[in-house]
């Protein structure tokens, strides 16, 4: 099995430790990982701002770099959703696109659905609040979500829950953190209120660490936490799974 490591721009430049944790985690499960160094960005910022024409060359570049892998894995739900749900509008009909869309997976769903990892080993004796990022939750269906009346499941949570000593706290809402790409700046007031409300919800639930599968949401929450000097830490799920072992 040939796996291409898709490291989104935010991870590559601002959270390299999340990329390294993803790499170590995959290697721990015996996956042979390749990292195509010419990759840049999937084009999500352009598409979400209405400039999908600008995203097309980036999507084509990604298809060229990653088209030949059995699986493409990224530690980011929203970038994976971009490939799976929006590349069709940009590159509809191009050879290899259907394969790329089918084979591009978010890290946790790759671990759960493809590798079918048993309970991850390791100890992480902390009170952890899981922020369920929207694109992972509602575009990739990493979890059932509170809106739908379906049998409850949560792929990210199921991985964390296997760690020894972890206390997964229960925030009252599974709502958006308010990042939303350019929304964070276009609608700064609402965006920050949403983020502060999420943080307060996790604090009330007793979290000492907020985790999630998308660094963009975590970057927004971390920015608010550090400005307000709250005693909370922010970690990507991959970092927890690696640190625990």
């Amino acid at each position: 099995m040939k796996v291409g490591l898709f490291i989104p721009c935010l991870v590559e430049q601002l959270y390299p430790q999340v990329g390294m944790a993803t790499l170590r985690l995959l290697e721990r499960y015996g996956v042979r990982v390749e990292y195509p160094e010419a990759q840049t960005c999937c084009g999500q910022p352009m598409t979400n701002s209405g400039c999908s024409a600008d995203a097309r060359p980036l999507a084509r570049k990604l298809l060229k770099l990653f088209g030949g892998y059995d699986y493409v894995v990224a530690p980011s739900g929203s970038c994976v959703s971009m490939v799976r749900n929006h590349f069709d509008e940009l590159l509809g009909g191009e050879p290899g696109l259907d394969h790329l869309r089918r084979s591009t997976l978010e890290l946790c769903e790759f671990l759960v659905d493809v590798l079918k990892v048993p309970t991850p080993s390791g100890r992480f004796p902390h009170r952890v609040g899981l922020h369920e990022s929207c694109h992972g939750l509602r575009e990739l269906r990493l979890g059932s979500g509170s809106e739908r009346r379906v049998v409850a499941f949560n792929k990210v949570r199921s991985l964390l829950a296997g760690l020894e000593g972890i206390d997964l706290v229960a925030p009252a809402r599974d709502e958006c953190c308010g990042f939303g790409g350019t929304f964070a700046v276009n609608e700064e007031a609402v965006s920050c209120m949403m983020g502060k409300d999420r943080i307060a919800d996790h604090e009330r639930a007793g979290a000492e660490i907020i985790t999630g599968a998308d660094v963009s949401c975590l970057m927004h929450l971390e920015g608010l936490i550090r400005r307000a000097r709250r005693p909370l830490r922010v970690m990507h799920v991959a970092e927890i799974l690696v640190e625990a072992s």
Partner: protein
Amino acid sequence: MSGHPEAAARFVADDAKAHWHDQSLWWVRKKRDAAAATVPDWEALRSAAARIKEHTLGRLADYLEEFEKNAVRSGAKVWFASDAAEHNAIVHRILAERGITRLVKSKSMLTEECHLNPYLEARGITVTDTDLGERIVQLRHEPPSHIVLPAIHLKKEEIGELFHGELGTDKGASDPKYLTEAARQHLRRRFLEAGAGLTGVNFAVAATGGIVVCTNEGNADMGTALPPVHIACMGVEKLVPRLEELAVFVRLLARSATGQPVTTYTTHFHGPRPDGELHIVVVDNGRSAQLANDTFRRSLSCIRCGACMNTCPVFRRSGGYSYGFVVPGPIGSVLAPGRDVGAHRTLPFASSLCGSCSDVCPVRIDLHHEILAWRQEIVRRKLVPVWKRAAMRLLAFILRFAFLYRLGAWLVRRMTPILPRAIVYSRWNVWGRQRELPPMPRRSFRALYRSRHGRA
């Protein structure tokens, strides 16, 4: 340009009230969750509703003809209006020909859309909205801030003050029961004086020619039972084929809207009552154009339950007025640009694209995807500021070339930590008003990866 971001910032500035608004609507959302959980196969019911709407809209002209034929057979008079002006003129003509000067209305978002009240008032007709929330906003000379909960932006103390001035209730009184009783007595007089009652229509059944009105306060029933003339105004999209299909929507509507199993009153009208008149005004007002548009057609399935507003994290924190359109929230952000894209160009950007709206929608409108599609359309029509467009182009250009991207990012990572805080967090840094910038690591992932694999 003033748009949603500015209005939303003003709403957020009153932190206590914005949180109260958020929590009130989240409470309704949770009631909706609980009500949906009582229905086995809720998700299948949503799918059925979506398919029925798709089918009906696909042959709307046929169903409209069938509806008209059956409604006329039952004794109703059916009018067709191509736009708001025609709708208003028809209603006025019905009233004027009968010398009616007092009209009682029960809730109708369509008449809000057509601005019927000011039109009739300018022609000497006294219009009284009889839904409690609608009456409250009417007394304040405001439009509704939510399509199901029109006065949700007001606290009971504000209503107490309003009623003290308008209805003579005790000063400082804010007991909801007391205030509601005062409104009932006030409205009762208006019901008795009225020459006609106007209602909206929740559903119109093609096979029977009947119309269905769902309310909780009984005001629609009072308003149609007392005066001799009933005028019912409906958009063309309210049709369902038969009673069997109606049942699907009745199960979904109140549960989605307020978390009730069913509205207190679900009234079926088949023709006028003895010695009375029933006029049904069927309105297009832009709906045919929406139907002809492949991208945005599905939003015409909306049954106006308001669930997308209650679940929207932006709506709950920015209030209905921030949208500046008769229908606010996620569905409003899709409908408003369809009417006037220039005037409403900030609405499709008033969303984090979280997708919660699409998952609560009882007719499965893919709201957040339609919002995203509007963004493409707005950029295509050059309705975003030139500098924003240029910034995106530049970013996209840089990202096409790995070396440019790495160089740019390297500069940002190295420069930001050594620049004075006053410069990094100048007023141009909108991100940094309430948030710290992310930590700027010295080395990128690629650099870490290369050194791990023994490359320079």
